[in-house]
């Protein structure tokens, strides 16, 4: 799949489509980013999602790979 042609910048995807994408791709091909509060994360999150609460995101951008797709919720 050519990501560049699909997502030049930012797009939206329904949870069901994300699920399908995850099922069809290897974990190292994408990143899941959870920007909610730790307590919300604890209650449930997409398996494999990395938790960086929104207030910390700007200071922790280096923990993410800018070249790989990021699913953010």
């Amino acid at each position: 799949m050519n990501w560049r042609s699909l997502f030049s910048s930012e797009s939206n995807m329904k949870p069901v489509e994300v699920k399908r994408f995850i099922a069809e791709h290897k974990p190292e091909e994408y990143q899941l980013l959870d920007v909610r509060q730790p307590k919300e994360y604890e209650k449930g999150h997409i398996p494999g999602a990395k938790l960086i609460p929104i207030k910390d995101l700007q200071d922790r951008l280096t923990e993410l790979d800018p070249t790989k797709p990021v699913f953010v919720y």
Partner: protein
Amino acid sequence: MRSKAAALLLLKADFQHIINVSGGIIAYEGGKAFGDEAFGMEYFVSGNFTDVFRMAYAMEEGLQQLYLLLEEMCDDEVVKHLLARLAQFEEGHKAKLETMFPGVLDGESVRSDALEGGFDRQQILDHFQARKVSSTEVIELGMMLETQACDLYSRLAEKAENDENKEFFLFMVGEEKQHLNFLSREFDRLLSS
């Protein structure tokens, strides 16, 4: 809302592919409010420090007014109380700005429809009109606006015309981060209750 603000941050940091997972978090349809690199900066057209300061002050004022208007619209006592607290908190931001930079306002009143981060107040009010607003939504809205404000001031600092303005914008970045921390703690309180 938060994911939208997060996506915008990632976009600014040159991430190549950002996908918002829609739903789950409230579906805020204000897509066009999230603009390009110059978004929100039109409010700071003048390089004059007094104007820059007034605009920043007006944005705090704008957010305070938004909280108060939402409080009027809302009939849930708990949410009303939260909105009143947040409005009170913005009052504190304004007082701090006045103390840190005395005399800049020079007794002139500041009125603006601009919000922190450059959002349009009416757009947000329209969104919440005739809907039940929950405490979670209120805090998410606040977090979104503070995140945007933080990003806006970072960009302004990079493009500042002089050192005085640059220093002020960097100071505001720090302030917005503190506000975000405050909202984060409020959110945790809410989640524990």
